[in-house]
């Protein structure tokens, strides 16, 4: 796809309520590239929590509201691989045989995960203004496996000339978030998060970045509970922070 004039921004409920700065930085990045960023105020949540809990009717009800909120043929940029995966991969399943199936397929075809859009559509060449920094990257399972965009986050970090990325041990493994899994199976989730936290801390990097705020919330909470760990940022925040003058 060539660079569009305008994009929709689907902020995700997690970013909306807990990490709005991540969404704001992503929107500023897109705007700086000369794209009109539309933030539909009608958007709420992609419906994934209910969908992954087996409550498909409830998920469909919420998903339908998003079909209404993002009409037309404008691309939809999502700063979360998990929510982008819900819109792209699962909406067509959720609406199979439904009156809104074609609207769901249409939306699915317009969805871009943020790093995917920045690299594949914009070929972003950020000018790194920051001082040398070591960071470690946590790719979400949705980025790695569902959308296959894990390499793109690394690519973006590499394009920041002064950032050195250190990969943690068992990088391919889930952090234990898994949405409602973290609440339904707290012990297993905590065991996974603890191992991930140890592996990340062992890199010695003072900053952890990722493209999914679910994982980052899980890991940041684990670090805070343990009383030590790196600072945590969404990749959009790091990109914005290092490429603009205050």
């Amino acid at each position: 796809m060539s660079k569009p004039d305008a994009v929709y921004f689907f902020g995700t409920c997690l970013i909306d309520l807990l990490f709005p700065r991540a969404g704001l930085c992503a929107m500023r990045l897109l705007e700086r590239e000369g794209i009109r960023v539309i933030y539909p105020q009608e958007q709420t949540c992609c419906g994934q929590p209910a969908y992954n809990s087996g409550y498909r009717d409830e998920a469909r009800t919420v998903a339908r509201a998003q079909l209404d909120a993002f009409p037309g043929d404008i691309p939809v940029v999502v700063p979360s691989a998990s929510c982008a995966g819900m819109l792209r991969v699962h909406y067509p399943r959720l609406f199979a045989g439904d009156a809104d199936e074609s609207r769901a397929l249409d939306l699915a075809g317009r969805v871009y995960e943020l790093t995917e859009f920045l690299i594949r559509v914009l070929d972003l060449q950020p000018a790194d203004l920051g001082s040398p920094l070591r960071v470690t990257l946590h790719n979400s399972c949705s980025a790695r496996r569902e959308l296959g965009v894990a390499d793109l986050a690394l690519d973006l970090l590499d394009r920041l000339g002064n950032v050195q990325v250190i990969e943690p041990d068992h990088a391919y493994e889930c952090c234990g978030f898994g949405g409602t899994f973290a609440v339904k199976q707290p012990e297993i989730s905590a065991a996974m998060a603890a191992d991930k936290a140890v592996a990340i801390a062992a890199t010695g990097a003072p900053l952890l970045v990722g493209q999914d705020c679910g994982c980052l919330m899980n890991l940041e909470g684990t670090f805070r509970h343990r009383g030590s760990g790196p600072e945590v940022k969404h990749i959009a925040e790091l990109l914005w922070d290092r490429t603009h003058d205050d």
Partner: protein
Amino acid sequence: MTTELRARIADALGNERVRANIRRALDGLVVKRLSAFPDEEELTRLRGQGEAIRAHALACLPELLEELERNCTANGIRVHWAETCEEANRSVLGILHRHDARMLIKGKSMVSEELGLNTFLEARGIEVVETDLGELIVQLAGERPFHIIAPAIHKDRKNIAELFKERFPELPYSEDAEELTASARELLREKFRGAVAGLTGVNFAVAETGTLALVENEGNGRMCSTAPDVHIAVTGIEKVIARLDQLPPLLTLLTRSATGQAITTYVNMIDSPRREGELDGPGEVHLILLDNGRSRILADPELQATLRCIRCGACMNHCPVYTRLGGHAYGTVYPGPIGSILEPQLQGLDRVGELADASSLCGACGEVCPVRIPIPQLLNRLRAEGAGEGPESRVPGRGSRRKPLQALIWRLWAWVHASPRRYRLMSGMLGRTRRLASRFAGPWTRSRATPQLASESLHRLAREEGFSDDRP
């Protein structure tokens, strides 16, 4: 979650030694698999081929099973059909009685675990001897297999040395793997010599030739299927494939996915009892084909993919939940991701449906499955089945996991999130209190600090920074 499962999970997570053992062993298997598939394109091609072969077999399963029966019978193999585990167990017992066999030597067979065969036979005075080293170890320990291809993967050498000392005090104590193996070999040779009947599983049953393919590394499968006068093979009806030329790609996928081996030490191709003029081999070969709910799974176009499984165990080796819990915590014969989709369909969602919840849906299982079973998608489907939502089905226990309070919460959640106005009201309220809804308190905060709600939502910040809300 039932208290039984919660207790098993707590036990598993608390056992540092076992956790270290399985992590070490499974990490090893992950690396071996990776180096066995150096060419990603070739792996993609092979997985596509494996999926197609298995999907084709399932698409014409009734015809293939009839063809298998015809060709096995023509080769002199006696075919028995068992709709239930009880029927299969009775079949085995009947054969043993006819031959006056008081002992059964066994090669590795997960279907025999599904049957509960050992318990069934022992209750009827038959001695059962596991001859696969891992199976022997768990049998001696009075346990169940921990992993479908590596039954004793949770035990280290010291565990095994102590177990042998306890069970065979006459043997010299050793923690040396080779010496322990040699001891087991001596013990088992005696059993092989005296056995009238041997039982094995089957990896693939080839319809066009009536051949039973069985792969193994220790030679005990060959011993069990050739040394005694009677060989009984047990398998699920889904293990049939159409043609002999489909076997090599499946074996390649199976052994590389399971242990990273290009080929196993033994590849047994069993197509008849001892023929006239042959010096060895069993006088009788029996094939028991077990349904036990598989026909019902086959009838569902989406869930049918469960039956493509070739039992390599790669899904467990790569599963972050299995890696932490191990096989016993699941409380089922088939543990790990494949177990979490298969067991609820075999036993019912009312009995073990909670296993479908024990996954973060990270997708690692689906990524490595050699026959591309979409395990995360099927876990999601079974969660919907548990809640009684999604397409009509015959999954036993459908709707049994729907709890009134939970259903009410999701209904409320949908009511709020389907309306931009209600959603804004809720987020505004949350923003003012800056305290997160109680759903995150409790379990979440035991190991994590509570997330801090932002004072201003992105909705508000976007408006304040002048981002357009104009939709064309």
